[in-house]
């Protein structure tokens, strides 16, 4: 257990010891901040014009209109950012040979994978924490539902965890971070778009394929809804990816 935490801690620290972590964090906060400001002005305009509506449709709900808009956009940013965070997790270790320190230490491959996963998630949590000024502004302006905001943040963490688990698997297969990044991004993009592609299809297997994709499961996330169905989907997804990564790490002993 201590070893898992030590690995997680080192992993988290490593993001801040190199420019990568700072660039990713700043980039994320900047882009989401841009969306936030943009949607806030748009919402303001919409609310003002709705106020003049003679038929009494005047009440526009911040929770129903504004929040889904910008948390929905978070996912697009995460789709790019998570592969950048996860690409180095194994590739760098393998490339600079530091992986042998882990392999020759009395820690199992499961602990290595879990430790690194927790470290990367720790970084995502820090990044998300840096965006908390956005809900703070909303509280200052209006009365957002704390449930919706908490739910949105949790679902974004779950979505990132999913992306990072895919990225770790890809990273364990190469010593090149660029290849790890591109593979991860390609896989995530397909999974993200799959339901949309499958929508018009009539065949059953296309429909089934659509269910495998993330799209249908992330739709509700933007609204801050955490359905059990979606949570089960994501937890299973993450579990499968981490297990496959662990198998891969174990196989280093046998290659």
């Amino acid at each position: 257990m201590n070893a898992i935490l030590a690995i997680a801690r080192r992993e988290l620290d490593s993001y801040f010891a190199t420019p990568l972590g700072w660039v990713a964090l700043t980039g994320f906060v900047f882009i989401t901040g841009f969306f936030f400001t943009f949607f806030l002005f748009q919402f303001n305009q919409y609310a003002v014009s709705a106020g003049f509506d003679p038929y009494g449709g005047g009440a526009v709900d911040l929770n129903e209109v504004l929040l889904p808009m910008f948390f929905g956009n978070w996912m697009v940013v995460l789709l790019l950012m998570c592969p950048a965070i996860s690409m180095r997790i194994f590739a760098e270790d393998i490339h600079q040979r530091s992986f042998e320190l882990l392999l020759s230490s009395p820690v199992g491959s499961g602990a290595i994978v879990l430790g690194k996963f927790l470290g990367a998630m720790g970084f995502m949590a820090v990044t998300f924490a840096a965006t908390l000024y956005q809900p703070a502004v909303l509280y200052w302006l209006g009365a957002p539902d704390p449930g919706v905001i908490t739910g949105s943040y949790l679902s974004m963490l779950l979505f990132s965890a999913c992306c990072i688990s895919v990225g770790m698997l890809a990273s364990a297969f190469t010593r090149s971070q660029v290849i790890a990044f591109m593979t991860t991004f390609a896989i995530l993009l397909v999974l993200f778009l799959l339901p949309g592609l499958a929508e018009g299809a009539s065949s059953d297997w296309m429909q089934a394929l659509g269910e495998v994709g993330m799209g249908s499961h992330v739709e509700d996330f933007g609204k801050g809804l955490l359905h059990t169905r979606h949570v089960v989907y994501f937890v299973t997804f993450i579990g499968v990816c981490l297990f496959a990564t662990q198998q891969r790490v174990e196989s280093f002993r046998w290659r």
Partner: protein
Amino acid sequence: MIEVEALTRRYGDFTAIQNVSFSVKRGEVVGFLGPNGAGKSTTMRILSGCIGATAGHARIGGVDVLQKPNEVKRRIGYLPEVPPLYGAMVVEDYVAFAASIKGVAKPAMAASQALERVGLGDVRDRVIDHLSKGFRQRVGLAQALVHEPEVLVLDEPTSGLDPAQRREIRNLLHELAAGERTVILSTHVLAEVEAVCERVVIINRGQIVSTARIDDLAARRHGVRLRVAQLEPGLIAQLESIEGVCGVNRTSTGALEVQADREVRAAVARVAVHAELLELSPMNSLEDAYLELTGSGGSEPAGLDASEPEEDAP
């Protein structure tokens, strides 16, 4: 302490080591010798639990490496050929990290002791990437030592270092080997083996060709190198007529090299003293023995200078 039994490892079709068996007693310092690609690193990586074996057993202190890897890894310190460093980390943090994943109770304290031990006390708060190669090698050693292992497995601990750094590491190895600690180190620098090890295991093309005490190995050959002030024409013939001498060569520097199959130093001295003997020394017989055993004798000793090996940058 270390028992290796019929160890075989294949990478696909390529057999890296085959039927390798040897053992090392507690407290012994053993050199693992062989040309590049002979299978030294593969054997050491199996011993350290980094990779598995295709067949055979390796036991450390009676515990099988492949069956109980974690128990073995707690008792073993391993320094790979390229030290496994996180370049962006601060020296002290790195060693403390190594200590905590190796299950040391007080990582920070263990790290600072290990750093003092390898003489890195002054650079403990520097970033590893900013250190010289010799220092980085020592950080690697600190990592291998931090959990006070009973066995040290060091893969070419002095490769790529300059002579001064190499001497420092060698002195360090002397200190580390004192007491009950068992050390196995691979190298292709013969001088190092002679300086540090009591016994050598010579491996060639994946197979053990000899395990012998250094003294025994060296005693097989009795070459003598001498230098005289007046090299008279008859001297070489006189030397050749000594019983046991197989041949006399004149080197480009003017010294004479006498090859013999038994102890001839006294007889050579008696003959050479008339030609004003300046210098008489035994030739590096370990090198001969090594070259003979690895089958690279006869041909020129490519890159195998006993004192100054070529740089083998990875």
